[in-house]
């Protein structure tokens, strides 16, 4: 049914996201795109150098996350999966939607699990994606509270 899956994570619930994606694929030949968006937004009056430092750190983290995804999705047991990592800078929700549109994605797999207070105070990437995504979304709710 699905030919192209977009798997995205900021590092949270990564193991569960991979586990659910593999379950969804069920040993079929499929293309998996691993996406990490380094959030490059910064409030007014943030020093330029510090902003760049934040983006660099997030890119480093993104690289580690995509490496972990690649390690799992390219194991010999999942030889039918074609994995492709994408690391970009931008607004996470906007970029996820844009990549889903550009790549003609069938399903987006991502995590969710913020408390109501956190959602009100910090906002939620998954909520924004749910409202504007061009395809089906599988939201993975973590059993563990992990941030």
């Amino acid at each position: 049914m699905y030919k192209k899956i977009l798997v995205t994570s900021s590092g949270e619930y990564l193991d569960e996201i991979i586990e659910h994606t593999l379950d969804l694929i069920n040993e079929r030949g499929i293309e998996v795109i691993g996406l990490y968006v380094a959030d490059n937004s910064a409030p007014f009056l943030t020093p330029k150098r510090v902003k760049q430092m934040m983006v660099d750190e997030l890119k480093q983290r993104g690289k580690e996350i995509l490496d972990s995804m690649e390690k799992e999705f390219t194991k010999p047991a999942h030889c039918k999966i074609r994995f492709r990592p994408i690391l970009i800078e931008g607004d996470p929700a906007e970029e996820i939607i844009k990549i889903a549109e550009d790549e003609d994605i069938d399903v987006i797999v991502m995590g969710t699990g913020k408390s109501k207070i956190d959602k009100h105070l910090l906002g939620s990437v998954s909520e924004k994606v749910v409202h504007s995504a061009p395809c089906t979304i599988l939201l993975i709710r973590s059993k563990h509270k992990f941030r």
Partner: protein
Amino acid sequence: MEIFLFALIGILIISLIIVIKSADIFVDNLVEIGALLGISQIILGVTASAIGTSLPEFGSAMIATLTGSSDIGVGVVIGSNIWNIAGILGITATFTGLIKTSPKGLSRDGMVTLATAVILMIFMFFGNIGKIAAIVFIIIYAIYLRNLIKSQREEDAENLANEAKDAKRNSKTVESESKLKKLRSISPKTIIWTLIGLSGLIVGCRLLVYSGVELGKILGIPEMIMGLFTLAIGTSIPELVVTFSSAMKGLHDLSIGNILGSNTFNIMIGIGIPAFIMDIPVEPLSLAFDAPAMIFVTILVLLLIKRGMKLTRVDGIILMATYVAYAVIRLFVLG
């Protein structure tokens, strides 16, 4: 009179923005010049992040001292340090719900921050802060900066080794950015922007101190109070935005490290350099209440973090309540 009051408030806000933006432009271009002169990226990176958010406090303290408003200068430093910890970390932990740190970062930055606050108080006991204290502060900061650079070098070497391993295994994930910059000549544009940044910093700080002093006179607020609260909170806006946004993005070490590093810089350089130029008088109430309050909030935050290497939402509320209690006692009980 009312028009003058509003004009002063306007000058205060505009000068704050000028100071913060000028500090940013100055550091940014100075780093560029440093890189072109062949100074290591590690040294530049560590120094830029250490002073980047603290230049407004330093500039204000320096200008205030040089223009005879040393109470404002000391007030900005001590007030910023209390606000940074109790206010900024309190607000950030309350809103983001969690700020984590590593034992290594906490033991290095946290203990240095506490030690510098205690050293400042010891010198305050002896009366005016003069050249001897200034030299001690500057030497301690130089040693601290050297340790930061050394630690960053080790971290970078570790990252490079890992990157080399990854490159062998797979090189598709990220465009590798070369850290080596080609040596070019320094463009006049960079020098002009550096000078614009420096001039903006000086003019902005002068306007900031002037509006702070004049506002205090009109409203009958002592200079020390203007320094401790209005200017301290205003000049700490860069710390607030950096701490808050980095905690939101999960860059916890940067979040807490920025505050602890800034507090160390504020005392060692924010008081050290002005004290080297002229003696800074110590107000008895500063010695009896503000400096102990600064040490108290530093110990409090270190104890809260130490329980689980993190600050939770409850810890944030405790810190914010502590700041409110400090402000109420300082403003309404002690005056």
